[in-house]
C-alpha cells in the first residue's frame, strides 16, 4: 500500500507525515505525531473522545482521513494550554472535579472551547446539547456543565 506525504499545521506548528490512505486523522495524530491526547472511544463518531478542530471546525478526528488534512490546520488538546498557562476551561475542570477517569476530558475540553468561541454565554441546555456527542460515563455530566458555565463566566469577565 503506497503511503502519501502530507504537510499540515498542528497546534500552530508545521507537521508532515506519511500515511496509508485508510488511516484516520486520529490514527495519524496518535501514532505518527505522538499526540495521544485525542482518544479513540468508538471509532464511529459516537463518543467525541477524538474531538479536534479542523480549520476551526469541531470534528471527530476518527471520521476524517489523514490524507484529508493536507494544507489544513488542526488543533488538539495538546495545543489548548498556551505558553504553559491553562485555558480557563482546563482550570475549571480541575477545580470543579469535572473529570473522574479523565479519558473523555480532552475531547470535551476541545468541544467546549469550540462552543465558547461562538457563544460566550451558553445556557445549561445549550451546553448539554452541544456536548451530546461527547460521552462521559463517570460524572453524570453535572460537574462538567458547571465547569463550562464557570469558565464561560470567567472568560466573559476577562474580555
Amino acid at each position: 500500500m503506497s503511503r502519501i506525504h502530507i504537510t499540515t499545521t498542528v497546534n500552530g506548528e508545521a507537521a508532515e507525515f506519511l500515511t496509508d490512505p485508510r488511516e484516520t486523522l486520529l490514527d495519524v495524530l496518535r501514532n505518527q505525531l505522538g499526540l495521544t491526547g485525542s482518544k479513540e472511544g468508538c471509532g464511529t463518531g459516537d463518543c467525541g473522545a477524538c474531538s479536534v478542530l479542523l480549520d476551526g471546525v469541531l470534528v471527530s478526528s476518527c471520521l476524517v482521513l489523514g490524507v484529508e488534512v493536507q494544507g489544513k490546520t488542526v488543533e488538539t488538546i495538546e495545543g489548548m494550554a498556551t505558553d504553559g498557562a491553562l485555558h480557563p476551561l482546563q482550570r475549571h475542570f480541575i477545580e470543579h472535579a469535572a473529570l473522574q477517569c479523565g479519558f473523555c476530558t480532552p475531547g470535551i475540553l476541545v468541544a467546549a472551547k469550540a462552543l465558547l468561541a461562538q457563544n460566550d454565554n451558553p445556557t445549561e441546555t445549550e451546553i448539554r446539547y452541544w456536548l451530546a456527542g461527547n460521552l462521559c460515563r463517570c460524572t453524570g455530566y453535572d460537574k462538567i456543565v458547571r465547569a463550562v458555565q464557570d469558565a464561560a463566566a470567567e472568560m466573559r469577565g476577562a474580555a
Partner: protein
Amino acid sequence: MPKDELKAGFRLVGTRPNRPDGLDKVTGRARYGADIVAANMLHAAVVRSPYAHARIKKIDASRALALEGVKAVVTRADFPTGLTGEDWNLQENTIAGDTALYDGHAVAAVAATSALVAQDAARLIEVEYEVLPHVTDVDAAMAPDAPVIRAGNADHSVPEGMHPNVVRYIDFGHGDIEAGFAAADLVREGTYKTEATHQGYIEPHACLGQLGADGRGEMWVCTQGHWYIRRMCAAVLGIEAANLRVTPSEIGGGFGGKTTIFMEPLALALSRKAGGRPVKLVMSRAEVLRATGPTASASMDVKIGMKKDGTITAGQVNFRMQGGAFFGMSPIAEALPCAFACYDIPNLMHEGYEVLANRPKAAAYRAPGSPMAAFAVESLLDEMCRELSLDPLQVRLKNAAKEGTKSSYGPTYNRIGLVETLEATMAHPNLSAPLGPNQGRGVAAGFWFNHGGETSVSLQIGEDGTVGVSVGTPDIGGSRASIALMVAETLGIEYEAVRVNVVETGSLGVNEPTHGSRATFASGKAAVEAAESAIKQMCARAAAEWGIDPEAVEWVDGAARPAGENAGKFPPLTIGEIGAKMGGTGGPISGHHESVPGGVGASFGVHVVDVEVDPETGKSTVLRYLVVQDAGRAIHPAYVEGQYQGGAAQGIGWALNEEYIYGADGRLQNPMFLDYRIPVASDLPMIDTVIVEVPNPGHPYGVRGVGETGIAPPLAAVANAVAAASGARLRTLPLSPPKVLAAIKAGQ
C-alpha cells in the same frame, strides 16, 4: 469548602483540593492503555466467532501468515492444557478451544508490523465452523429443551433434575416465611426482568505485552487491578507470576469491567511467538461490547408481606441469573443478600440460580447484583405502598435496618446510616417540588457491602520532608487525592507535600483491584497505618538526637516534639529536618502496611427522581434527580458527589435505554454506542446530592466507600416514577418508549 472542614473537624479531610493528576488529564498528557508504545512494537488483531455457539472445525492461517508484515498467529493450540476451575474459564474465554461459546468469542489472534496489516491478516484467517443450537435468554436456558452449553459444570448445590445449564443454587433466610406472610395484611408478588448492560467505560481495553522465550515478560495495561492481570495471565499462559511485571496505565473507566482479563494473554502469547517483540492489542468498541464482561441478565420473583401500617412481615425472592457461558460469573451470590439488606424483616427466604447461556463471560459492574435486586424489591414495595396509601419513604424508615439489626444475609449490622439517609431525604426540597401533568415522583433505596481486600501500601519520607506514597489501587476517580489528603492529615503536613503513585507489581505486595468501593477505604487505611509507622520512626530519630526516650516524643503538626516532662526542652524537629539528615541517623525512613483490612462499613443510599412521560410516545424525561447516601466520611467531597452522580447516571441509563439486544441468531445487534444507548449530556438534569456522614468506626477517618451504592436505587426509582407519571407499571427493563407506550395503551 469551609463548611465541610467545620463539620469534619479536620485540617484537610473534607476539603476539595485539586487532584494531583488533574493537570495531566486536562492537557492530554496522561497516558492511558492505548497510549503506551515500545520500540520494535507489533500490533495485534483478533479473529472472533460470528456465531453464538459453534464447533470450531478448522483454523487455516496460511494466507494470513503469507502476508508481508505478519509475524505471528496464535490459536488455542499455543496455550497450555490441563487448567481447571476459574483458570480454565479465563483461558477458555481468552481464546476458544473446541467450541465458540458466544458471538464475539476470540478464536485466533495475529501480530503484524502495523495495525492495518494485522486487521488485513485477521480477515485472511479462515475458520470453519459447525453451527450449534444456542440460547441467550436466562429463562429459556433453564427450560428442558434448551441446548446444553457445557454438561457437568453444575456444582453440588444444584437440585437434581435441573437442566445442565443450571450450575449453581443458593438459598438462605431466617424466621418462618409462611408465618410471616400469614401475619401480613397485604401480600403481593411480581416477576421482574432486567437485560444485560455494559459498564460502558469510554476507554476500550488496551495493553502492550512482551514475553520472552525465558518466560519473563512485561505488560502495560489499563486495568483496575494489575496483580489480578499478573496472576490471570500467568495462569492462562503457564508462566510464573513473579516473572511478569505488570504496570497499570491511567484507566479510562472500569466500573468493575476491568477487574479481569479478556485479551491480555493474547498479546503475550503473540509476543512470545514473535521472538519477544512487544505486541500492542487495542479493542474496538464493537469488541468491547461483544467480548468483554457485561453484567448478568436477570429474571426475578419477589413476594412481600406488609401490615396496614407499613410493617414488612416477610420477604421472599427467587432470582435466576445468567452470566455467560462460564460457571461462577453471575452475581447471584451478591444479588440475593442485597435484596432485603435495607430492612429489618423477621422472616426472609432467598433462593437463586445461576444459569449458563451463549453470552460473553460476565464481569463485575458497580455493586454487582444489587441494582437488579433493588429493581425487583423496591418496585414491589412501591406498588404495595400505593395500594395501602402509605408514604414510600415513611415505610422505608419504619422498616429501616440500623445498628444491631440482624441483616437479611446474616451478620448483625455495626453502626450504619440508613435512618439518617432517609431523614435527610425527607428534608430535601426536591420532595416538595410541584409536579405537573404526566409527571411523577419515584423513590427507592439501595445497599452495598463495601469491601476491604488484600492491600499493600508503602510510604517514603523524602530528603526534603515531602512524602511519596506507593499504592496498588489504580486511580479511577480521584483516589490519589483522597489518599494524599488522609496521609497529609495524619502527618500534619500540606496536601501538596504528598505524592501518591500507583506502582507496578514489582513494587508492593499483592493488591486487589480498585473494586468493591475499596480504594479510599483500604488503600487509605493502609496509607494511614504506613504514615503512623513512619511517624513512630521519626519520633525515634528525634528521641535519639535529643537523648530521650522515644515514648517521650509526640508528633504534632508535622514535627516531632518532646512531650511530658521534656516538653519545651528541645525545639521541634520537623519532618523536613528529620528527612534532611536521615542518611546519618539510621538511613531511609519509610512506612509500609499490608493487610486484609477489617472494619468494612456498609453503605445505604436513597434516590428520588421526577420523570415526565409523553403519553403519546412513551418517552421518559428525567426532570429532577436526588441522591442521598451515607459516605461514612467524605474525604474529598467533590469526588464523593461525582461517584453519586455517576452511579445515578448509569442507573438511569440502565432503567431507560441500555440493554443487550440479541437477534434470533444469537448475535449481538447493538455493539456500538449508536445503539447501546448510554445517557448523553442532554438526557440528564443536574443531579443533586446530599452526603450523609455517619462515620464508619472501622476506618481511621470514618470512610465507608462510596463508589457502588449509587447505582442500586435508580432502576427502581425511575420505574416507580414512570408508574406514577403514566400509570404504566413495568416489571421489565429497560423502560424503552415502545414498552412504555404499549403499557400505557394496555392500561387505557
